[in-house]
């Protein structure tokens, strides 16, 4: 690449990430609407019936997008090395002004941990969502799914704000990956040294 | 009913036997529940544990057709334990009468009474008579010691109904028998009262009339007749069947239960002579002694000015029965089967499903030249020609369907079990082309009349001379629109002249010309009054110029607290709510039970009519005469009987003065455990038999009428009944989706034991067959039927409802009528078919 930029995410990854994010926002907002009977949302969605339809189909988008997300980062996302353990013990370097973590791969440890969370919580919330949508008559599954869906929701509304913070304010230079897909090589050498090394740059 | 529905709440003990009010009279059942709320005990005796049994304090099972044995045991218990109400029995019943010593009962004659003619299957009742004194009044023994007094004969007759014998016959465990007897007989005390509720479970047997008679005997022994919370109470099966019998829709009676005249009674004088009972006892009111007034007033009502003294008031125009003619249902359809009828009106009925031996009925319909089906819906009768197993091409009958409208689409009165006539106003116009029955009749009458006027005929007068003043007439003389009120008024009757009571001086005017009659007391035998039905006289009256439809009153006053509601609508006779109520007081006129006083003699108050001291308070007394103790003017309480006494000995019935147990025509036993006569010896047999083993006979009778008794081919006792969800043969209710949804298909209730024997499970489709037909039914395997231990063996009983028919639902999924199984045999006195006890077989279909 010229201009000292290196490609960290391709066009498909970017589109998929936005699909995931946007569908997530729709799901969370409508989710809060159902949870707390927020009738103000009728000005956005029209009616709760329509909100339900939109929630369900946004869920389909989320599930499909999640599927691509999961397969996109394999097998790297699930690999552990000694550096990942060290990263964890050092709190990712977020709890001191002196950042000093071992060299990171294309996904840093935190990102790998987040991947696992999304894999589990995302699958749980999608699967349970489909059960609630399509099999509401089977009571035993509904109780299970209802818990899974709502626990997943609680965890998501904690994790995603943190994810957004970490991807913007906390780590300047990260957000451009989601828009342009490229980062300066120098930035990459500092943040994802192992990856840069593997690429032979 | 002698009493009425609301009165049931006043009982201490309610015996439900031969009925299932929780299921078939659910609204009126509330009065049974009210009685229970007041501490009453409900006893249910039934082959099956019914919905009524589910509310009972005591339930006892009994095999269908053995009610007389059961109750006979109760009579023995009452007499042996001296639980009868002695003062009542001695003073108000014929228990004290002496009977002809030549009278012999079944105990001495092994099952029959004296005077039996085996060939004719009839009794010469000469010996069933009382010994008369020199004044022509029955001799009495108030000490009840004379061996020929009714009481002793009763005791002798029922001494054979021991607990062992009764239990053997009925299958009821002995302990249960005693439990029932003990509780019910406790109402023999003056301040305890018991009532009995019965329906088709008692009447639809070859001994049906005697079933009821047995209970009447018990009620008289216990002093329960005429009392609040007592009486003998028939639960009628249709909202207005009481009205239909009151108005003479049966072949043997004219309106008001006047006997139909027979051909040999050549004139009105002979009719009055023959049918007016007489008594020599001045203390007996003998109300039927007024027969002449009622028949004459009836003739004046229907023939109006055409009926005059000179032409015997038109008596010659009344249709007459041939001597000995039986025009009952079973005979009618038998004749139709034999091709004796050209035409038939099935008016508001469905014989193809409701008639016993429905298969024979359906075949009979095919012999008609024409038939008119008048109903709200088409049914199995109107569509008989396209029924299952019928080749329409073979049927030559022309069928007309005339749509009738429902009861909410027309004005009129409905008379219920309580004898209460309640007026109903039309609420909506009839839909489509449907018409009220009286409009249809009006059309028919006009057309028939025109045919007679134009072309003459065999005997036009009976039709042409009818007044038919039922509404405004057009220029052609046809009533444009029938006014139900006009009909009601004609039924009530009019004074055709000014009427005077000539027994007082000076004669007092009791009726004004052209006014509506006050009541039947003022009816005359000389043609000066008209009355379409004497028992309804007083239902539509007039006070000066004010005309009052008494049946439309809706006043809820109940001053006695007994639920008489004397100002709500109007009941016959003369709005007397509890009949025979003179028996509810002692000889001085004080109530036996002051807490539930129906009437009470107040000697200090002045009677506004006679200006004499002494008046009855409470219900309309059953005769205004002073109490019996009054030597000069006192009267006996049972005013409809010639001798004025309650009949413990009943010589007027065809099959005996005391009820005797006989087995149903089809029964599981080879022999009657009581005597050598297995079946009622006076019933009309349609299938000729020879000898005591009535199996399939080689000679006589239609194959359709075959019956099988104690036959391995049909080993199970069967009965039929109704369900809450449907009504009668289901013509109306099968068309109500909400009802059909609850009860969609024919079923048969089977005991778990029988089901296990046959490998049947609940929900299985079963084929139920009898000697006459076959139906499929869904099995309901239940604990509610239990096998009976009868005469040392196990007898199974099953039951089916009769509300289904092939015609609707149209796919036949509902099943067909259980009357395809029932036999051609009827009660000895009424000919009502024995559909409550017959034999069947079952197999998985």
């Amino acid at each position, binding site marked *: 690449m010229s201009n000292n930029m290196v490609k960290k995410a391709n066009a498909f990854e970017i589109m998929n990430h936005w699909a995931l994010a946007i569908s997530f926002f729709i799901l969370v907002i409508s989710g*809060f609407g*159902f*949870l707390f*009977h927020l009738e103000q949302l009728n000005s956005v969605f029209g009616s*709760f*019936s329509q*909100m*339900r339809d939109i929630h369900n189909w946004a869920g389909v988008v989320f599930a499909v997008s999640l599927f691509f997300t999961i397969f996109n980062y394999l097998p790297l996302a699930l690999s552990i090395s000694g550096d990942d353990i060290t990263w964890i013990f050092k709190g990712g370097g*977020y709890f001191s*002004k002196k*950042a000093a973590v071992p060299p990171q791969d294309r996904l840093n440890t935190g990102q790998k941990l987040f991947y696992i969370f999304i894999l589990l919580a995302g699958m749980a919330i999608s699967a349970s969502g489909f059960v*609630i949508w399509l099999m*509401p008559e089977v009571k035993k599954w*509904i*109780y*299970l799914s*209802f*818990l899974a869906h*709502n626990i997943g*929701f609680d965890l998501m*509304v904690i*994790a995603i704000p*943190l994810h*957004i*913070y970490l991807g913007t304010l*906390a780590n300047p230079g990260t957000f451009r990956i989601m828009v342009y897909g490229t980062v300066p090589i120098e930035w990459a050498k500092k943040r994802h040294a192992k990856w840069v090394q593997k690429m032979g740059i | 009913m002698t009493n009425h529905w609301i009165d049931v709440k006043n009982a201490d003990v309610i015996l439900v036997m031969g009925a299932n009010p*929780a*299921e078939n009279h*659910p*609204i*009126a*059942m*509330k009065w049974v*529940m009210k009685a229970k709320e007041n501490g009453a005990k409900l006893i249910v005796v039934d082959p099956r*544990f019914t*919905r009524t*049994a*589910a509310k009972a304090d005591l*339930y006892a099972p009994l095999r269908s057709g053995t009610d007389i044995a059961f109750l006979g045991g109760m009579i023995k218990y009452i007499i042996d334990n001296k639980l009868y109400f002695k003062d009542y029995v001695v003073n108000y019943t014929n228990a004290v009468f002496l009977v002809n010593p030549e009278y012999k009962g079944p105990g001495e004659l092994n099952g029959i009474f004296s005077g039996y003619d085996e060939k004719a299957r009839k009794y010469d009742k000469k010996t069933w008579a009382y010994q008369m004194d020199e004044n022509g009044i029955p001799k009495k023994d108030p000490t009840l010691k004379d061996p020929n007094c009714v009481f002793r004969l009763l005791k002798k007759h029922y001494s054979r109904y021991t607990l062992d014998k009764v239990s053997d016959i009925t299958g009821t465990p002995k302990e249960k028998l005693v439990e029932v007897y003990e509780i019910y007989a406790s109402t023999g005390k003056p301040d305890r009262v018991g009532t009995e509720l019965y329906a088709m479970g008692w009447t639809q047997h070859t001994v049906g009339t005697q079933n009821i008679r047995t209970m009447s005997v018990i009620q008289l022994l216990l002093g329960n007749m005429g009392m609040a919370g007592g009486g003998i109470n028939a639960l009628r099966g249709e909202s207005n069947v009481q009205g239909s019998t009151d108005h003479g829709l049966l072949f043997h009676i004219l309106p008001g239960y006047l006997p139909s005249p027979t051909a040999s009674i050549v004139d009105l004088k002979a009719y009055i002579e023959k049918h007016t009972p007489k008594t020599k006892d001045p203390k007996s009111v003998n109300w039927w002694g007024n027969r002449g007034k009622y028949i004459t007033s009836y003739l004046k009502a229907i023939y109006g000015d055409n009926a005059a003294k000179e032409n015997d008031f038109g008596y010659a125009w009344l249709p007459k029965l041939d001597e000995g003619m039986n025009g009952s249902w079973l005979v009618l359809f038998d004749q139709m089967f034999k091709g004796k009828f050209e035409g038939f009106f099935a008016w508001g009925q469905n014989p193809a499903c409701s008639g016993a031996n429905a298969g024979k009925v359906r075949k009979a319909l095919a012999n008609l030249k024409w038939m008119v089906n008048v109903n709200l819906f088409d049914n199995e009768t109107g569509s008989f020609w396209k029924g299952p197993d019928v080749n329409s091409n073979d049927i030559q009958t022309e069928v007309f369907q005339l749509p009738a409208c429902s009861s909410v689409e027309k004005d009129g009165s409905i008379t219920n079990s309580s004898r209460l006539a309640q007026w109903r106003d039309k609420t909506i116009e009839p839909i489509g082309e449907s018409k009220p029955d009286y409009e249809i009749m009006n059309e028919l009458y006009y057309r028939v009349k025109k045919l007679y006027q134009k072309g003459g005929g065999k005997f036009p007068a009976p039709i042409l001379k009818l007044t038919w003043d039922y509404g405004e007439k057009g220029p052609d003389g046809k009533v444009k629109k029938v006014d139900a009120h006009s009909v009601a008024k004609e039924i009530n009757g009019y004074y055709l002249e000014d009427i005077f009571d000539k027994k007082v001086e000076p004669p007092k005017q009791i009726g004004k010309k052209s006014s509506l009659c006050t009541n039947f007391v003022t009816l005359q035998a000389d043609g000066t009054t008209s009355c379409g039905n004497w028992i309804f006289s007083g239902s539509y009256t007039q006070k000066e110029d004010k005309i009052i439809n008494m049946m439309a009153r809706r006043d809820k006053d109940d001053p006695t607290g007994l639920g008489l509601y004397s100002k709500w609508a109007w009941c016959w006779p003369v709005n007397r709510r509890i009949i025979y109520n003179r028996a509810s007081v002692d000889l001085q006129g004080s109530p036996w039970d002051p807490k539930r006083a129906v009437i009470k003699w107040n000697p200090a108050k002045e009677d506004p009519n006679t200006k004499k001291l002494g008046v009855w308070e409470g219900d309309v007394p059953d005769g205004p005469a002073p109490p019996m103790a009054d030597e000069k003017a006192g009267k006996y309480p049972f005013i409809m009987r010639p001798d004025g006494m309650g009949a413990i000995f009943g010589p007027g019935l065809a099959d005996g003065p005391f009820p005797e147990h006989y087995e149903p025509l089809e029964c599981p036993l080879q022999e009657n455990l009581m005597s050598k006569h297995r079946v009622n010896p006076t019933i009309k047999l349609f299938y000729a038999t020879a000898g005591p083993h009535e199996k399939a006979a080689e000679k006589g009778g239609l194959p359709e009428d075959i019956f099988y008794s104690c036959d391995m081919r049909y080993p199970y006792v069967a009965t039929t009944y109704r*369900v*809450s969800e449907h009504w009668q043969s289901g013509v109306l209710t099968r068309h109500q*989706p*909400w*009802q*059909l*949804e*609850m*009860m*969609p*298909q024919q*079923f048969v209730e089977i005991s778990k034991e029988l089901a296990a024997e046959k490998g049947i499970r*609940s*929900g*299985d489709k079963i084929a139920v067959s009898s000697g006459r037909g076959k139906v499929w039914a*869904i099995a*309901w*395997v*239940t*604990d*509610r039927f239990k096998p009976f231990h009868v005469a040392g063996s196990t007898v199974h009983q099953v039951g089916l409802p009769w509300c289904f028919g092939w015609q609707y639902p149209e796919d036949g999924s509902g099943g067909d009528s259980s009357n395809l199984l029932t036999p051609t045999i009827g009660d000895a006195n009424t000919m009502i078919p024995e559909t409550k006890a017959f034999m069947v077989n079952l197999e998985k279909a």
Partner: protein
Amino acid sequence: MTRKSLIISPELCIGCRGCQTACKGWNQLPATKTVNKGTAENPPDLTPNLYNKIRYVEIPSASNPVRWLFVSQRCMHCDDAGCMKICPAPGALFKTEEGAVAFNKDKCIGCKLCVSGCPFNIPRYDEKDKISKCHLCSDRIAEGLAPACAKTCPTGAIAYGDRDTMIGKAQSAGYQKLYGEADLGGLGILYAFKDAPRVYGMDEHPAIPEAVVFWHKTLKPLAYWGLGGAVAVSLLHYIAFGSKKDEEEVKKDE
């Protein structure tokens, strides 16, 4: 308006099912084609077109061939209604003035979660998946009339009136405790049982399913606390630690 109730007394019920028909008549509910399965109980279960039904319960008896109970099954109109708790659509299920749980099909989103919130398995769904159940004839009550079933019942097995008055009456009739007096905040439909509820086929201690209670009490608040908390923590972290700086930048600052 004070809270209204029905008291169902199986001891008075004669199983005539006038209540089933009256309800259908008043609510103009269509009938369905049924099949006789070996019992009078038909339709076999509540449906979107059958708001109440009688269960025919046969249990052993010492003195009779059977003990036969007729028990009305219908929405209990709970004060603490599980269906309303779990319902995601505002106004789809709502409490009427007299304390009944009524429904508005236009606001119902057809998610069918309510039957899972109900301890009595009552809600059913029509062909558009909308909630269908007894609404205690709220339209009749609004006009001062009794519910159709109570009006029709000939024996008073279904009785209607002010809840407190009805309880008082039942107590004077000898029923010390009525089923539903205290459960779920007090049920709108009370039963006068002579024996233990399980004899009549009813739950001794009806309760909203635990999963639903846990969700309502714990998971729901966690949603806004969680979201708020995550945002707050992020802000606090930024204030405390700022953005992540690489080594040269750190050195530069020092």
